[in-house]
């Protein structure tokens, strides 16, 4: 069973968010401004937690959801988004999205009936999308949720292991990461008809997707890892990770940049506030790349491996989540854009991502 666990852990890599604030909703409370650290928690029996970093005081408060509600979030907190004035925590292994007031973290509801949900994307005050891996981790789909009734209203099958989503005009692009299997497509969903209208072939197992300032969609593909009997990677049968750029208007692939090693892992695609620089992990290091670049960067920005990566547009700092031994508290290390470590703070168990407010 352990190998499966490891596979899942490796697959549960979160990508930092590039989102716009919704200013029409006022958020007040102790957690209105700051950085939420999403700690997915130990696998199987435990519960994930949220830690909150106060930028002014430079202090961390742990377990804020449990403190506000005297109950845990649930097993494997995959991601968190703040939309309107609500915080949405996607709890993967509990098949639910917990909803709380974004300022106080007081629970306001729950969306249930999801199968291995991954990410939340708010569309309007009534509508949101949740990507999910589905039954057996292969029947990937996007669920449409009515935010007033907190009920699922429609299921749109996409590809295997529906993962990160990005909204472009009246469409949503979904990276089909393969789940427990393999996929190599990005699905495009039309929000008006609530149907998948196109599928773009990229490289194997696309996990991260970013829409840059110039209208290009960058898709980071993990590649396919094939293992030998002794669990070493069979390089001949594997495919290398790749970064694919797509023209969002024509939906044509501009180019595909293959990483040199088939055995190294790539993930954690995120971008800076004005969407001009991409950040991602590859081979246990963090790289930065301008959105105008047409080749992969030669040198790493940070020589450290992270379980999750984020970019704080408020202070222009890169956040790296170090999950440590996966059973005790992890660490978050903050870097400036030159890759120099600024400081570090403690996280909860298995930090995997951030939500910047």
């Amino acid at each position, binding site marked *: *069973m*352990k*190998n*499966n666990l*490891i596979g*899942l852990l*490796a697959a549960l890599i979160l990508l930092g968010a590039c989102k716009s604030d919704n200013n029409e909703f006022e958020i007040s409370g102790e957690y209105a401004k700051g950085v939420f650290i999403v700690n997915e928690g*130990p696998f*199987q*029996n*435990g*519960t994930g937690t949220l830690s909150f970093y106060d930028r002014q005081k430079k202090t961390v408060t*742990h377990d804020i959801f449990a403190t506000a509600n*005297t*109950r*845990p*979030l*649930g*097993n494997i907190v995959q991601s968190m988004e703040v939309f309107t004035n609500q915080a949405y925590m996607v*709890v993967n*292994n*509990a*098949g*639910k999205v*917990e909803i709380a007031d974004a300022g106080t973290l007081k*629970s306001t*509801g*729950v969306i249930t009936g999801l*199968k291995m949900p991954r990410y939340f994307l708010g569309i309007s005050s009534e509508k949101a999308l949740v990507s999910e891996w589905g*039954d*057996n*981790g*292969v029947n990937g789909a996007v669920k449409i949720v009515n935010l007033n009734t907190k009920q699922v209203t429609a299921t749109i099958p996409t590809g295997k292991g529906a993962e990160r989503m990005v909204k472009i005009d009246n469409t949503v692009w979904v990276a089909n990461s393969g789940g*427990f299997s393999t996929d190599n497509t990005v699905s495009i969903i039309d929000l008006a008809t609530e149907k998948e209208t196109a599928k773009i072939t990229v490289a194997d197992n696309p996990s991260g997707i970013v829409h840059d300032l110039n209208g290009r969609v960058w898709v980071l593909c993990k590649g396919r890892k094939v*293992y030998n*009997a*002794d*669990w*070493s990677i069979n390089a001949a049968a594997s495919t290398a990770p790749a970064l694919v750029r797509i023209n969002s208007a024509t939906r044509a692939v501009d180019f595909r940049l293959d990483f040199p090693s088939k055995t190294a*892992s790539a993930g954690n695609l995120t971008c800076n506030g004005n969407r001009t620089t991409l950040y991602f992990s590859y081979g*246990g290091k963090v790289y930065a790349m301008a959105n105008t670049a047409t080749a992969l960067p030669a040198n790493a920005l940070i020589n450290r491996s992270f379980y999750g990566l984020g970019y704080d547009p408020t202070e222009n700092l890169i956040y790296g989540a170090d*999950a*440590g*031994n*996966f*059973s*005790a*508290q992890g660490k978050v290390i903050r870097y400036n854009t030159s890759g120099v470590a600024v400081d570090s703070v403690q996280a909860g*168990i298995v930090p995997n991502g951030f939500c910047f407010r």
Partner: protein
Amino acid sequence: VPLLPREGLSQADKPEDLPSSCCVRTFGKKGGGWRLKTGRRHTCAAVALLLSPFRQFGSEPIYGYFLIKLLMLKSIGFIACMWWCACTAQAQDTTRVIAEVTVEAARLKNFTSGQHLQVLDSNLLADGSRNLADILSKNTTVFIKSYGLGSLATPSFRGTGSSHTAVLWNGFNLQNSMNGTADLALITPFLLDEATLLAGASSALFGSGAVGGSIHLNSRPRFARQPLSGSVGLSAGSFGYLGQHGAFRISKRKWETALKFFRHTANNNFTFRNLAEYGAPVQRQQNAALAQWGLSQDAYFRPNERQLLAVRLLHQNSRRQISPSMTTDASQARQSDQATRLAAEWNRSGPKNEQTVRAAFFDEKLDYQDPKVSLTSHSRTKTLFVEAENLYRWGKLQFNSGGHFARYVAQSRNYRQGNSEQTRMAVFQSVKVQNRSQTVVAVVNVRQELYGSRLAPICPSVGLEYLFGRHWVVKGQLARSFRLPTFNDLYWQPGGNPTLKAENGWNAENTWQWQQKSDKQDIDIRITAYTSQVNNWIIWLPTGNFWSPANIARVWARGLESHWRYGYRLAANHQLAVSSAWNVVRSTNKNRTDAEGYNRQLIYTPIWQGNARAEWSWKNWTLAPEGQWTGKRFYTSDNRMSLPAFGIYHLSVQYRYKHKRYSAQVNARAENLFNTGYQLIAWRPMPGRNYSVQLTVGF
């Protein structure tokens, strides 16, 4: 009539002490001429009675299923043969005058001086509906980590880990060679005759795994005065629990055969408040059903006063659904476990020497399926044991010398081929010396084990016992202990580390005991201070792409354990007994490389825990309230997260009826009287108030 001793050597030394609801005998039939016919009639009637519940309660044609399973075992011939022998032998013997052959478990009874032996009350074993985890959690200071009603349950003895308690069946270790643990929820002590707890390290006697303590499950012949005895029982309880159990024994001058079986099914669909969900809804436990059955067949042959041959079969079959935790979505996982264990033992005792040769073969299968994550896992282990020992008495000295051989084979898709076999060999030697009045006893034991081509740490132990005054016993031991890496630790792909060393530890303990016995009352108070250390403790750590085990942890456990008991006899048929046991333990991580966990309490190790029981017997009635208290348990290695302390209370009532050699007994039991919500493993709900009744008929 003694006041139902709950523990102590006195009871173990009475070979005829039968569980009251298991076999009820009438004495005074010395030489009673039971004819072949009588025996057979009884057997047939009993079998018919036995099988009827299978048809009645089963959700499937259980009767056929039961028989097919038996045939598959190919053991029916064996069982039939044993019974045929016993029945035909019956005609010849009419008297039983041969003295008891009392040569068994020599190491456990003779060479553990300095340590505390707790023999579990035979009444506990007589209940076919209870598993070992349930019995230990309510009656001893062993902490049981249970994932829910009937789910995986592992012990923590004196603050050690789940694989640091050896569980031995008639001298053979039941700890799974793949994962190192014994699932106590799968062991039904009803199938055995005696369960003994040995606290503290005893690797010098019993080898790998006996670090925090060991549990000894033994069956033994009675060669009782009554040629045919037996019982059948039916039980029913909350959450769809239904159980049947039976025991039959034919006891002859030279032969004895005993068959026991149980079967139970349960839905375990109790309700609980899910504190992890929005609005804390009351939910019904889902995917928690189980169906289990097992049987034991023991046959003994005593050709003369000096020799005893025993052949034993133990088979258990379990199918369980794996319930979800409070923090996860619905579960579809299920697990099935099958274990067949066959053992033979030959013993010859002379005035000076006593030889024992024993051998066993285990075949265990485990299938686990979780459709939600497309996971199917099959594993199978086969083990062969051969052991020989000789006890030599020379004046006040006793020497026990022996050798042990075991061959382990494991099959799993997760192992590299050809790497899942291991041969273990060991030599052991014990010396015991005592003074003439037996008030001073000293033992020295040593064991050296070889696994594969590597030597386990040489394991010595020294024990001392001193009886003084009229009431005092003071004893202590200093012992080394070890635990070998499991097949998973060594060979799991990916991560398995074939270079792992054995864990090794030291244990020192000191016990003061005060006992007083009179016609009216008996008092037994014991307090033990202990300290133990485990070095090279194996833990799995992430190493890049996968997790891998390393000899990295060090744990220091120290604590105080106390037991006390008070019995008072108001009249011949009216007595009262109160008993209680407590354990306080600090078990801390001494691994400096683990900054977050250093000096913190081990997870799922309560700092304090205790239980108390009162038993009031009047005429045919017994009323017994029980309480069980457990302190705070941390469930993260940095001790930030913990489960709160809790206390739960139970009440049982028993009514016994006896007519000539027949008896009937009704037990009613209410557990968790105050409907307390608690968890033993974080976010694994445990049942609230629940009831069970049991009817047992003995003859």
